[in-house]
């Protein structure tokens, strides 16, 4: 990185970038997956480690080793509570990394796991988590081949944190925002916001009729099925922290296109929608752990929907919008036709999601 004098030999730490500057310390919002996270990434990590692979800004890194194209990614899991309806930290740790590899269009092969355990954690809890990881890895067809364990003093960890990293092989060519074409359809794999609301409901002791289950699942099966069918998948993105809105805004900005979606086409389960309405949360900003969007030529969407219907977690896949023509104004933005038929911009999540007062 060049400094002001064009001298790249010694790079001073960047001048305190804005979000860090305002707070002087890390806030929860820095990990929220929204714009504040983005700013931390762009102002601190990216300049520090700048290289061509990192600069592709994908969910994982694309590497070429001896003529073989690989994808490499990592993800840390700090969810509290450790167990929630539809999953647990172990399943999440395996699926999270498997899904990042799947979004690179890669077949997941190997995982590492780093466990940070808090003194006093019941062994029974740990073995439940490990068993859940074993099952999730087997289902995703991935092997856990290396790992590490550390223990911290009681009170210094939430019971258990897990980091996983993964390597996968790219067998069907590379996709990404740069491959998106005007007119592409935007396909959403399933209903939104279940993971975020399931965890929040449990954590905050919110009671309502009907259980909300996290959508936590491996996406590698459905994605590989799309690729193996020869569909031209131009870009894939899983909708984790920050939700659909954040993913779309990032992609629209990187690809320099206008993404248009329709509110009435976006599926949100009724109970989840009710909780979002009550708490003033936008389902478009809530985290998912088993949902993705795919950009592909409009004429291939019927086949894609048919293929995805074979898998439990993606049987509700549907087209929610498209990429506008090159002549469209406001490139780099996402526009949504609201329920009453009026266009409005979609913004990424700002900081953390905070429930409103009334």
């Amino acid at each position: 990185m060049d400094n002001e004098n064009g001298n790249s030999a010694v790079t001073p730490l960047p001048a305190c970038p804005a979000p860090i500057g305002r707070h002087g310390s890390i806030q929860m919002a820095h990990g929220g997956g929204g714009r504040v996270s983005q700013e931390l990434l762009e102002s601190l990590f990216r300049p520090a480690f700048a290289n061509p692979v990192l600069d592709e800004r994908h969910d994982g890194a694309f590497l070429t080793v001896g003529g073989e194209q690989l994808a490499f990614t990592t993800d840390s899991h700090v969810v509290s509570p450790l167990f929630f309806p539809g999953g647990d930290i172990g399943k999440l740790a395996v699926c999270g990394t498997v899904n990042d590899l799947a979004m690179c269009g890669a077949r997941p092969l190997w995982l590492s796991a780093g466990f940070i355990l808090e003194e006093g954690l019941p062994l029974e809890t740990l073995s439940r988590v490990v068993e859940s990881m074993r099952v999730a890895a087997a289902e995703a067809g991935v092997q856990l081949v290396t790992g590490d364990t550390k223990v911290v003093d009681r009170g210094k960890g939430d019971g258990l944190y897990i980091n996983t990293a993964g390597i996968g092989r790219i067998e069907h060519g590379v996709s990404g925002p740069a491959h998106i074409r005007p007119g592409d359809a935007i396909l959403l794999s399933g209903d939104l916001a279940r993971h975020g609301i399931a965890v929040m409901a449990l954590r905050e002791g919110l009671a309502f009729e009907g259980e909300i289950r996290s959508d936590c699942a491996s996406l590698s099966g459905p994605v590989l099925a799309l690729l193996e069918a020869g569909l031209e998948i131009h870009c894939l993105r899983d909708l984790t922290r920050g939700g659909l809105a954040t993913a779309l805004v990032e992609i629209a900005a990187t690809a320099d296109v206008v993404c248009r979606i329709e509110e009435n086409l976006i599926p949100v389960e009724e109970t989840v929608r009710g909780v979002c309405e009550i708490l003033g949360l936008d389902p478009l900003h809530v985290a998912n752990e088993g949902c993705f969007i795919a950009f592909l030529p409009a004429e291939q969407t019927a086949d894609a929907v048919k293929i995805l219907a074979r898998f439990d977690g993606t049987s509700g896949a549907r087209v929610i919008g498209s990429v506008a023509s090159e002549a469209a104004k406001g490139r780099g933005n996402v526009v949504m036709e609201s329920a009453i038929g009026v266009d409005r911009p979609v913004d990424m999540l700002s900081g953390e999601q905070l429930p409103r007062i009334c």
Partner: protein
Amino acid sequence: MKYIDEYRDAQAARRYARAIADTVTRPWKIMEVCGGQTHSIVRFGIEALLPREITLIHGPGCPVCVTPLELIDKAVELASRPEVILCSFGDMLRVPGSRTDLLTVKAGGGRVRVVYSPMNALEIARAEPESEVVFFAVGFETTAPANAMAVFQAERLKVKNFSMLVSHVLVPPAMEAILSAPDNRVQGFLGAGHVCTVMGLEEYPPLARRYRVPIVVTGFEPLDILQGIYLCVRQLEEGRAEVENQYSRSVRPEGNRRAVEIMRAVFEVGPRKWRGIGEIPHSGLRLREAYGLYDAERRFGLADTAGSEPEACISGLVLRGIRKPFECPAFGTRCTPERPLGAPMVSSEGACAAYYRYRRSDGDPVSAGARENSDEKGT
């Protein structure tokens, strides 16, 4: 989803928009009082359906926005004390005080907890008797009964380590302050539906008569708001100034008597400072003497601080409907949801945050471009 989808129907919305256009003959300025209505208007793009004669002015009904700076500073001071657990609704955490906000205090080790109900705070007080638990009681007539109930229960259960930092405000005095200001532009109101669900309608006819303004108590879904505007415009065009209840599926004329009873038992009316607007007589609630023990300001001997708002922030003008958010030079540049200068950029119900998220400028290039597109498609 029942009670939601039928009020977001695009065809019905267009029918109401047409009815409004057919009724209106000259320009009218209508204020929606409640921040929840502002949020809906901007989120669903309701203004795009209205004829150019109708201007919506966004009112001061966002509790986060009008909680005075001094109270935020007091909350910050309390949260910084090692013995205190400060419990608050989520949106208050990002609101800037004169020096810092509660999220920053939390990151620095202050015990700040997000709760969903004042009763959660009371439960925390019972579970952690060695800590002082303070609930930051903000909001309008909507949240006051539940907050009153928490104090009432604290006394009944003899919970000694529970208190409230009270910043309650009342809607009708604020409407009166707006109407009596020399620069007032408001000709009709969409009244705050949820406030009236609690309080009923009886406070409004005197206002409608004295200031000759129609007041249509209105709900929060797009069709509620369009119908509210339609009823208001019809009154304006016909020269009437009456109280009408658009939100009759929730609002009964007498309100919720039990809720009002508990509220009046615990709180009394007093003057209250509104952020950006100033002090309005009889516009706030404070704890009655009999419940003085639960008043955090008294319990901790908190003195008023002399904080001042950032000069660039015009939130007072925005809250009184004199300026639109994008008329502020700091809007979207020096002031964003990540770095708010004023409270209306914080809450999802604040006009500035709603405009920032859903509508960047008057002639928003994004929507304008997109609209051209959809015209091509013939939608």
